[in-house]
């Protein structure tokens, strides 16, 4: 059934009651210039978060303690009702336009935003909420909310928001926002800031909304080493089928193009190699190269693409690495993948790189270069295409010897 704004529907008054609810988000037109982000707020009966861990967004893709998982490049949330803490009575799902106000953008530039509420187990569609967004001046939009009502869980379609974007939205729910990407000046590269004399003492740090998109090939940013070193660095490659004929949600549910993520690395001691599914070279976090390939993220949300994890405590032993994407089977069709690379490092802004140029005659794409520069991590956008590993290796001077391999 299609919901109107304000309308609600019971999710658990059915047999069997869904354990996990999936909220899939989509918008028209899909090829919009708006940079649309999604977030979820887990709220108590007072309508506030318990702490910043209850704010699920691109810098924090799962609820602390479990129960909410952001997936599908932010186009879906999985809410496991039975795994939510008892104190959580509402889960608000919102969309925001990154720097929308600053760029003069709003949801009014879309025709429609649509949410589909599904039973994750059976994939049965429980409800859909198509919202016409024409004329909307808002840059943050509360799509809807799951909420407890007596012994059941319900979903209410909302369709209201804030002109001011994510910051007023987050504050409304009690999230302590440090930086407002809409009103703040563009963040200077972290390397330009003086190193703090001592580690920050405050335990309750305001949450970072900051996200940096490396727009142009060759543009780079340096993540500055803090006293304790880096935590786990996660490089995620995510992609969509894009523009298929499988309807509004085809992007989420089927993938014609399968991408493999991998990397070439060089250690400070001169050793070099590859971490990739080919040849089952999945690497290791505790031993050199301190890089591990995860076919999936740890929560099992397979919609979230592939992950390379780097043990930041051993960053000093790494010299550099180039993460790449490979189309192993089928004709290369990069333009349909709509692929995005995100690099998440604790206490650092999220970095985002889009594959915004395509070479459909090549099978491999060098995505991003991570270099050890005086202990800091210099991140450079590459998006350069190659025929195979050998050419990529030559271009970035890893000096490896190549033989044919297979994933089997």
């Amino acid at each position: 059934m299609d919901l109107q704004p304000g309308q609600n529907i019971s999710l658990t008054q059915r047999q069997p009651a869904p354990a996990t609810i999936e909220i899939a988000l989509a918008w028209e037109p899909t090829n919009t210039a708006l940079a649309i982000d999604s977030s979820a707020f887990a709220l108590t009966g007072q309508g506030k978060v318990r702490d910043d861990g209850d704010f699920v967004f691109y810098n924090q893709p799962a609820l602390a303690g479990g129960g909410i998982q952001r997936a599908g490049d932010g186009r879906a949330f999985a809410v496991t009702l039975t795994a939510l803490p008892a104190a959580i009575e509402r889960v608000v799902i919102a969309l925001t336009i990154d720097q929308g106000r600053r760029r003069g953008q709003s949801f009014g530039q879309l025709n429609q935003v649509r949410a589909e509420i599904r039973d994750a187990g059976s994939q049965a569609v429980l409800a859909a909420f198509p919202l016409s967004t024409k004329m909307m001046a808002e840059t943050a939009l509360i799509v809807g909310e799951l909420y407890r009502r007596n012994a059941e869980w319900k979903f209410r379609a909302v369709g209201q928001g804030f002109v001011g974007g994510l910051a007023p939205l987050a504050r409304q729910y009690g999230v302590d926002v440090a930086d407002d990407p809409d009103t703040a000046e563009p963040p200077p590269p972290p390397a330009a800031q003086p190193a703090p004399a001592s580690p920050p003492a405050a335990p309750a740090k305001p949450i970072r909304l900051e996200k940096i998109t490396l727009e142009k090939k060759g543009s780079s940013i340096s993540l500055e080493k803090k006293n304790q070193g880096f935590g786990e660095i996660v490089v995620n490659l995510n992609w969509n089928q894009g523009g298929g004929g499988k309807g509004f949600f085809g992007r989420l549910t089927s993938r014609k193009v399968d991408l493999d993520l991998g990397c070439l690395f060089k250690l400070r001691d001169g050793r070099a190699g590859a971490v990739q599914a080919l040849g089952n070279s999945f690497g290791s976090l505790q031993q050199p190269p301190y890089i591990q390939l995860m076919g999936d993220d740890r929560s099992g949300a397979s919609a979230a693409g592939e992950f390379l994890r780097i043990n930041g405590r051993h960053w000093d032993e790494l010299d550099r690495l180039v993460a790449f994407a490979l189309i192993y089977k089928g004709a290369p069709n990069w333009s349909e993948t709509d692929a995005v690379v995100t690099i998440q490092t604790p206490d650092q802004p999220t970095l985002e790189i889009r594959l915004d140029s395509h070479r459909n005659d090549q099978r491999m794409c060098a995505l991003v270069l991570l270099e050890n520069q005086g202990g800091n991590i210099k991140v450079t956008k590459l998006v350069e295409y190659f025929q195979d590993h050998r050419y990529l290796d030559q271009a970035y001077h890893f000096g490896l010897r190549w033989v044919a391999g297979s994933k089997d």
Partner: protein
Amino acid sequence: MAISLQKGGNVSLSKQVPGLKKVRFGLGWDLRKTDGADFDLDASAFVLDGNGKVLSDQHFVFYNNPKDPSGAVAHKGDNRTGQGEGDDEVIEIELGTMPPTAAKVAFVVTIHDAEARKQNFGQVGNAYIRSLNAEGEQEIARYDLSEDSSTETAMIFGELYRHNDEWKFKAIGQGYAGGLAAVARDYGVNLG
């Protein structure tokens, strides 16, 4: 301790407060927290006979007609005085001077300009109606409607009615399509 009513539930005000003379009905809802047109909600009272029709057009008590002819039912307007703290609108009823033909008073809340603003009660948070003893401000019964509403633009929140020699209060929570005019017509008000 106040009684919390569920939809359809009722309570005898006369039994809860023996000798009750004046009842205050407080109606409230959350202000809009998001951006956009505010929710402009209006409360009205319809003084009805045994057939559910107004005793006269003047027994439709609302912002343009703040008292019925007997003066027993009084719309106190937007509550900005601090009285009945937290209530958005207040209607007071002198039980002793109610016309003998009045069997019931229905309390209706409508969203002003709901169609044009595309608003409905499902978007209004924490709506309630509560009855208090006007002498001493003691809350007698309360009904939280928020979950019983959806896409309606008018809602009957509750009813005060005679039952034998008692006055009772019933939680209704019934939606109504078509706004205040449709409600008024159904209660037999002749709208110009």
